[in-house]
């Protein structure tokens, strides 16, 4: 299935709308990890980011399958997070498209729903925490070894990502709930 249609199914699985582009991109990051699909995420100044998914969002918007609402918030904070927030929701056409996808590709649609449920059940965290969890997971996966929060934070700075140790600890709890990491000793 094309990644743009995974975006549609993901939006549907999270109630048909999402608050902020970062939240959507990071949810799809974790979804890709759970499904074992390569959505082209790579280290970006703001965390793991996929040009492919960002491009998919533009196409879906152009085709009237999703609509975006923009909220302006002014200058960026120290962490470099969104100054403008893009909220996305499925349009009527988008909902029809989701129904078609579910009918034509029932297994893939179900795997997206299952993965989304896993993400939801791991904790209803906001875009900033999800972003930090994505960064922490990206680093752990890249290093393929057991790491302490302090080491993860140090490694994060190599990608120009500013994250604090308590934020890492919180992110790791989410990743543990998601079954994507295990901890060998309490923090």
């Amino acid at each position, binding site marked *: 299935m094309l990644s743009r249609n995974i975006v549609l199914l993901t939006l549907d699985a999270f109630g048909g709308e999402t608050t902020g582009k970062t939240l959507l991109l990071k949810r799809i990051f974790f979804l890709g990890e759970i499904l074992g699909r390569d959505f082209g995420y*790579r280290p970006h*100044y703001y965390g793991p980011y996929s*040009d492919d998914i960002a491009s998919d969002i533009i196409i879906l918007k*152009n085709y009237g399958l999703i609509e975006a609402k923009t909220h302006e918030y002014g200058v960026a904070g120290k962490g470099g997070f969104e100054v403008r927030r893009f909220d996305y929701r499925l349009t009527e056409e988008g909902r029809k498209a989701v129904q078609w996808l579910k009918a034509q590709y029932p297994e893939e649609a179900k795997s997206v729903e299952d993965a989304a449920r896993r993400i939801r059940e791991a904790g209803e965290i906001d875009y900033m925490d999800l972003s930090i969890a994505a960064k922490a997971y990206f680093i752990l996966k890249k290093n393929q070894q057991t790491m302490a929060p302090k080491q993860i934070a140090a490694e994060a700075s190599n990608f120009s990502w500013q994250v604090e140790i308590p934020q890492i600890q919180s992110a790791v709890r989410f990743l543990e709930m998601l079954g994507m990491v295990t901890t060998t000793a309490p923090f």
Partner: protein
Amino acid sequence: MSRNRKVRCPIHSFIEVQDRECDLLDTPILQRLRYIKQLAMAYLVYPGAVHTRFDHALGVFHVAGRMCEVLGIGDGYKRLIRSAALLHDIGHGPFSHVSEAILEALDQGKRQGNCGGKVSMHEKITQQLILTHEDFNDSLARKDREQIAALLGEGFGDRIHHDILCGPLDADKQDYLLRDSHFCGVRYGVYDIAQLHQTLRSGSDGKETILMIEEDGVHALEQFVLAKYYLTTQVYRHKVRLITDQMLIRAIKLGVEEDHVKSLEELYTYNDDDRFLGNYLSWNDGRLISELLKPENEEKYVGRLFRRLSKRELFKRVFTKRLQEISESVRMKLPERFTEQRDSLEQEIAAALSIIFKSDIDPHHVALTLFSIDSVRTQTKESEAAIMVQKKPVPVSFDEESALFRSIDESSKDEFLECYAPVTYSNTRERDVLLQKVEESVKQILDRFFSSTDMEQEENKGGMNHVEP
């Protein structure tokens, strides 16, 4: 004794090659690139576009070295980066991206990488050759090979080293924009490389060194981004160039899949072994042309189609539409099902064309293609936006700093569906009338394929087109 050489280059004047770099340059693997054209058969559109991968490799080598000097990269890394630049395209096959398209179509396996998320087939082969090929035994130590391969892959050392070779402002793009413009005889790809280099800076984010530009470089970078956009729309996506590429790809694919030409099967069936690589390296544009024009291939699909191409009897574009101009359900379903439905669609369109043009059109000679062009704003958002502009108190992204790019609407990404076929018409009036009929017919076919339910679609598959000649 110094073994420095100075090579004349129409883009960068003199390119200086030093000591052991001369050994690399003289390897058969590098020399092979002299016989692979940078832009495949684009010379059928732009007669001057006969430059080769070898010219480009030298250009990237020079630009990467210049960037290292401006950015104050030490001699050790500079040597590795220049070598990596020289070797970055050695994995290309005949007609460059044409071979890439065929290899990837016949081998679905792509691997995760850092250059844009996925590693292309030629990048994969390049890595293999750098790490293992005996041509480099005398010129590169084992450690050098590993470090060069890493530089072209995930990176080695500071992030800035990787940025020089593989990033939004890499030496590759800096060279090919100027070179392709020059040889095509267009001015779309021209930008102020000297000013851009003047303003390149290695900035620290506190922990790591990254590529930045000074505020004074923002306008040169805007020019670079526009050059990339215009060259994409005016040269790389030129109508006739797309047709020649599609005809070449189609000819070779038919040669493999229908004619079963053994030499083509061996060339385009990727295997991760020395036998495949040894054979692959023995091919270049000239050898492939000779193979396709061999008398024994004359009556085969591959021979017939390639002869057409070599005589410049090109297919015509019989249909072109932005997906946004096609009905909602088609535009949503077609991209998802394009690969699996393309053969059936081409058969239906061939039948319709046969009626409209009153001649037998072979479905194998109908090429349907789906491609996209990002708006300049989207292109920027996805690449140059990552470049940081050195400002006080903190660096800001180029996307935020450039007034020009902030003002452009990002939502104009276009996807196109086009169809090429061997049709003829005697004048433009006749052409317009016939192509109008083709457009209506193709829209009907698309609607039948994608708007109906699956059950109706099965019934429709064998149906004739209701086209009035």
